[in-house]
């Protein structure tokens, strides 16, 4: 057997026929989802894919310009705070839903009141639970009443809170919406097989607004779980647009010089969570600040970013994504210094290191690389790679002393979306630091931007000093497109179909 020929025969780089055969010709952009989306109804899914479709099918009241970060009117044209908990919005006139139903205050009121009703059991409660209810002022004016002052309200109104047609939704409910979604968005759903296939069509009656009208006629989305198969279909010209391509493949595809490769940061950050509060083991090594600092020093985060994460990712030192509001950057950081790590371990009473179970649920190679670094300083790790649900359950049962986690903050550019989740004394709070809890809770309910910033800064500084987490890096998303496709990705992991165009 000629080993080399065998290898060569399976290597495609040299012989691959470049695709881009279909697509532009019939004005259909073909792309793939990697996993099955449970429901198109945005209030009943928690997946990234759902957000993508939601942005195309529906509109929210406000719109955040992904480049400037500025909030613009979308379905609402003006909005003013009546008081701390009352927001009055003027609605855009002349907008119709895909089924012809006109858009007005009733839709907004219905939607807000529906999703905030606990009986509706929306999936991501956090997205809507800050609102209490909505009131109609006149046909094109509504008021949204908050439960309590909520500084990032505009961010949420520009993101997950989209407006449903009241009559239609009343009639079909979430199940009907999942099979035949109706919105005001720049695209409408032409065909849908749940979890498998979606065909979006340009909405000719789109009102425009800050999103702008889309330019591509049809967007055809298949679910293809295997990334190799996706790349194969890109080669075959069966796909025009890949999204979330792993770094190594992206580099190679870029190297072929035939594809349009883009990279953008995501709001997701990686971090190592450690049982500082001792809820897993009050005597465990993780309760010792020196050990946590040693772990910090032991891992060469920059090397992992350079070798594995790549793209536009950067090492972070703060327990939040740098683009989030209030994410303090000027705080204690710990260099890669294995000798210091060993010294700290010795000082903490572990001159020979210790053995511990290390958990992770995604990015196995990153986790393996970190374990490699930990092993170097004498911390022997037993790897447990679990499904997200299983790992989360273990964490809530206080069985995980150290794990590699990530958090995407629902693409909300506000530090509350991450600190509020993990440092406010909930079951996933490993630090249980009373001071930090107070600061963050206060920040989350304060309207004053500067005051909030100060509170987050204090909290984040203490988190860094105490080394409650080891913040790792920001994530990035790779986009590989056929040369016919033009798209400039933004830093929030969201593909805006209406911003894609043909070259």
């Amino acid at each position, binding site marked *: 057997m000629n*080993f080399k020929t065998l290898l060569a025969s399976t290597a495609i780089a040299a012989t691959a026929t470049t695709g881009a055969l279909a697509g532009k010709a019939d004005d259909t952009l073909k792309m793939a989802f990697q996993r099955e989306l449970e429901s198109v109804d945005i209030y009943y899914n928690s997946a990234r894919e759902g957000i993508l479709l939601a942005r195309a099918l529906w509109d929210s009241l406000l719109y955040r310009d992904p480049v400037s970060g500025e909030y613009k009117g979308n379905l609402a044209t003006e909005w003013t705070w009546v008081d701390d908990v009352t927001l009055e919005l003027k609605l855009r006139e002349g907008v119709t839903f895909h089924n012809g139903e006109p858009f007005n205050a009733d839709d907004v009121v219905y939607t807000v009141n529906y999703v905030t009703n606990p009986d509706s059991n929306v999936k991501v409660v956090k997205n809507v639970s800050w609102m209490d209810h909505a009131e109609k002022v006149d046909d094109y004016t509504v008021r949204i009443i908050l439960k309590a002052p909520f500084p990032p309200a505009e961010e949420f109104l520009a993101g997950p809170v989209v407006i449903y047609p009241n009559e239609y939704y009343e009639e079909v409910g979430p199940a009907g919406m999942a099979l035949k979604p109706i919105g005001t968005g720049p695209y409408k759903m032409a065909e849908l097989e749940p979890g498998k296939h979606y065909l979006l069509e340009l909405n000719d009656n789109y009102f425009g607004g800050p999103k702008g009208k889309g330019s591509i006629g049809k967007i055809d989305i298949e679910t293809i779980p295997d990334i*190799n198969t996706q790349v194969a279909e890109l080669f075959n010209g069966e796909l025009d647009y890949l999204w979330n391509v792993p770094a190594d493949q992206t580099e190679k595809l870029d190297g072929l010089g035939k594809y349009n490769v883009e990279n953008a940061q995501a709001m997701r950050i990686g971090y190592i969570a450690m049982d500082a509060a001792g809820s897993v083991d009050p005597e465990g090594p993780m309760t010792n600040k020196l050990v946590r600092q040693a772990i910090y020093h032991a891992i060469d985060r920059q090397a992992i970013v350079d070798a594995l994460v790549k793209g536009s990712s950067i090492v972070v030192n703060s327990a939040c994504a740098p683009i989030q509001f209030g994410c303090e950057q000027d705080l204690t950081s710990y260099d890669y210094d294995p000798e210091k790590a060993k010294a700290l371990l010795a000082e903490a009473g572990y001159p020979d290191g210790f053995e511990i179970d290390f958990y992770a649920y995604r990015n196995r190679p990153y986790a393996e690389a970190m374990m*490699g670094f930990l092993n170097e300083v004498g911390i022997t790790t037993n790897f447990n790679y679990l499904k997200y649900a299983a790992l989360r359950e273990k964490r809530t049962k206080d069985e995980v002393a150290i794990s590699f986690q990530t958090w995407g903050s629902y693409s909300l550019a506000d530090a509350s979306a991450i600190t509020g989740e993990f440092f406010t004394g909930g079951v996933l709070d490993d630090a249980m630091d009373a001071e930090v809890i107070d600061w963050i809770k206060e920040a989350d309910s304060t309207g004053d931007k500067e005051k909030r910033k100060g509170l987050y800064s204090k909290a984040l500084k203490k988190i860094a000093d105490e080394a409650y987490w080891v913040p790792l890096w920001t994530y990035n998303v790779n986009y590989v497109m056929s040369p016919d496709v033009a798209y400039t990705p933004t830093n929030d992991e969201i593909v805006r179909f209406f911003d894609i165009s043909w070259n």
Partner: protein
Amino acid sequence: MTDTTTELEPVVTATDQSKPLTPRQAMVRRALRHKGLLFGSAVILAIVFIAVFAPFLTEHDPFKQSLLARMKPPVFMGGDENHVLGTDALGRDYWARLAYGARISLMIGLLAAVISGLIGSTMGIMAGYFGGRVDTVVTFLINVRLAMPVVLVALAVVALFGGSLMVVVSVLGLLLWDRFAVVLRSATMQVRKQEYVAAAEVLGASLPRILIKDILPNVMNHLIVIFTLEMAHAIILEAALSFLGLGVQPPTPSWGLMISEGKEMLLFEPWMITIPGIALFLLVLAINMMGDGIRDVTAPEGRN
């Protein structure tokens, strides 16, 4: 009566050379002529050798990563001598991982086959020997087992308990006993009908004695053949679990895991999946060929 004094059948003498060989001699002779068996055994011996002497065959540590030397190609693809088979996505030496990985894959195959063999052959022999209700119960259990979609159940269990080597081995062992039970049940039934078993019973042999002396040796060839088949089966199933991300845990260098990791770069660095793929293929091929060979060689002795 002219010739009744002549022995029609010559009395056997111990030195008579024209008489057939002992079963063992005959088996060895057939084995030495069986190409598949020889090939299979040779490959397995080679892999066992690599597994046992892995530390002497490479100076690299299979766990030692080097993020600056990732995915170096093997020497025949233009790589350097230091990493004969290149390095993986974390810069670990591929040859070292392959060599140490042989231990894991062999161990998974052996242990899973031992567990399933113990369960399945006990059930099969009991059912075949006693028949009746025991047989009914065992047959029912075999049916239940066969009706369970094995890959799904294995996946679900590994997803639940995590993919430690012990869990994977136990799950495979607990799921793959059906063929042992089916084959040994019918083989035991065959042997049970033989008159030498009845003779042993009449001669007062106890049940364990009959099982050990008369049944077991005569179903042993089936047992060995199924053992090899299931060993191969377990190895390939573990690889499939690894492929789906639920095999043994990294950084353990199992071949299935290496394939799963190499899969990521299938289209660009095909050697990464091909090297462990071929290793796995060869191992399973060799085990199967050995199994086939053993079956041919130990086939019931010809009745003249």
